[in-house]
């Protein structure tokens, strides 16, 4: 059983930010095919801002909720793309899910993770199958919940989430977008992976690695 404190969450943002700058060009290229080619920039900018914002906090005296809200706000104001409000809402909902806790146990962490997925859904109103990041986040959240219920612990749960996200992202190739910029392409969006689903995999893998080492 892992115990996650604010310092661990801060280092998680550092890990996601690193992963995003490494993934930036691939994400821009994916977005270039069915969107406006800026998704890598947006994610890189957003998570760098979130990392810097939480790094500036005294993690000793900051609870997870406050930290996650600070990350949400800085992400939001750094990014003008769709991913800004989507991830900002994700972290705000994650923050709300762990309200009052000083540290997170496995169940808290999975609850936070599932709240993030719900936040994205509330903000973007996309259902799975519409070729968005929800196609990675929804199965990931569900897989994490099922794994935890079957006693797999946080590491196993996030591993299951990452696995489901990857499959979900892969599945977007066969979808016609009906949300987001790509929805204006109609059938022309077929055959290409959704950039937001692709970056979700990167985010989730980085969370898995950072929260379960």
């Amino acid at each position: 059983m892992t115990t996650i404190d604010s310092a661990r969450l801060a280092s998680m943002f550092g890990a996601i930010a690193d992963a995003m700058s490494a993934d930036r060009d691939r994400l821009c290229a994916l977005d270039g095919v069915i969107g406006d080619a800026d998704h890598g920039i947006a994610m890189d900018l957003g998570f760098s801002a979130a990392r810097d914002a939480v790094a500036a906090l005294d993690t000793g005296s900051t609870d997870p909720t406050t930290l996650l809200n600070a990350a949400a706000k800085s992400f939001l104001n750094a990014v003008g793309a769709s991913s800004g409000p989507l991830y900002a809402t994700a972290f705000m909902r994650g923050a709300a899910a762990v309200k009052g806790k000083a540290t997170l146990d496995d169940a808290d962490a999975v609850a936070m993770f599932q709240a993030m997925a719900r936040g994205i859904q509330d903000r973007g109103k996309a259902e799975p199958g519409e070729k968005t990041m929800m196609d990675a986040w929804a199965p990931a959240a569900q897989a994490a919940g099922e794994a935890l219920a079957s006693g797999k612990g946080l590491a196993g749960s996030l591993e299951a989430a990452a696995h489901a996200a990857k499959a979900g992202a892969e599945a977007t190739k066969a979808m016609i977008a009906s949300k987001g910029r790509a929805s204006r392409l109609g059938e022309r969006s077929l055959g290409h992976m959704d950039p937001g689903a692709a970056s979700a995999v990167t985010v989730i893998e980085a969370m898995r690695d950072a929260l379960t080492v």
Partner: protein
Amino acid sequence: MKKFMNSVDTVLTESLDGFIAAHADILVLGDEHKFVRRRALRPGKVALISGGGSGHEPLHGGFVGHGMLDAACPGQVFTSPTPDQMLAAAVAVDTGAGCLFIVKNYEGDVMNFEMAAEMSEGVQQIVTNDDVAVENSSYTTGRRGVAGTLVVEKIVGAAAEHGLALAPLKALGERVNTATRSMGVALTSCTVPAAGKPTFDIGDSEMEFGVGIHGEPGRRRDTLKSADAIAEEICAAILGDLGDRAKGPALLFVNGFGGTPLMELYLMYNSARRIFEKHGVTVTRSLVGSYVTSLDMAGCSITLTMLDAETTAFWDAPVHTAALRWGM
């Protein structure tokens, strides 16, 4: 990429600095280039705020001033402004009667404005979606907001100046949006400074029919047709979509995308006007020029807004902004 610039990172802020310096009699720049606002506010008036990605100049900053917007938030090129910009603008220009955000229908813009609206009190929004190029029915994201946004901003701006309250202003804006249809065609691509190369490739004798104002794909790629043939198809799309409403007085707005000169815009206006009038539309108001642009893209859009006595009067009402000015 051939542009007048010093560095990709400072294109926006340098351009805004120049814009504000050139119009310092009516405009003030917010801290950190977060927004552009009117120098003189009118206490008790509903504050109108718009914003969106940059690269569409003079939209929206060029429409800030008496009779139109109170503030505009410029995002990075083709990227939504962020909620902190919108909130800062709202704080700066709300004199107590509330704020109305005017937002073009792009998910990034809509979600960012929505978050700003959730974070502040007394804020309403209008989402414009006048582009008939992309069908509403097939895709749930809905139509894009394009050049017709100018018409909404002008008419709602005049009504706000006239003293309308938040709720009726929002209703008026939605009415104008519903009476407005647009469609565009591109002859060349635009080039986003940060990208450094054209957004799309297009052949020497091709056009992108139904293009979006960010160079998004339209209905189809086609060979370049005559002005009359292009106008015929755009007008048919607009008329077909308006259906029975396409009768009587209207504003015809021919908008350049940035790289097309006035001579061609007036020629397109001439073609479009003839077509609309043949179909029972009476063009009572006109606007021709590059007002809702896509950086340096060559091309144009045609917008038709069906007018009534009230909206005509608000269109005619005095306006004093950097890009639209009459009556004062």
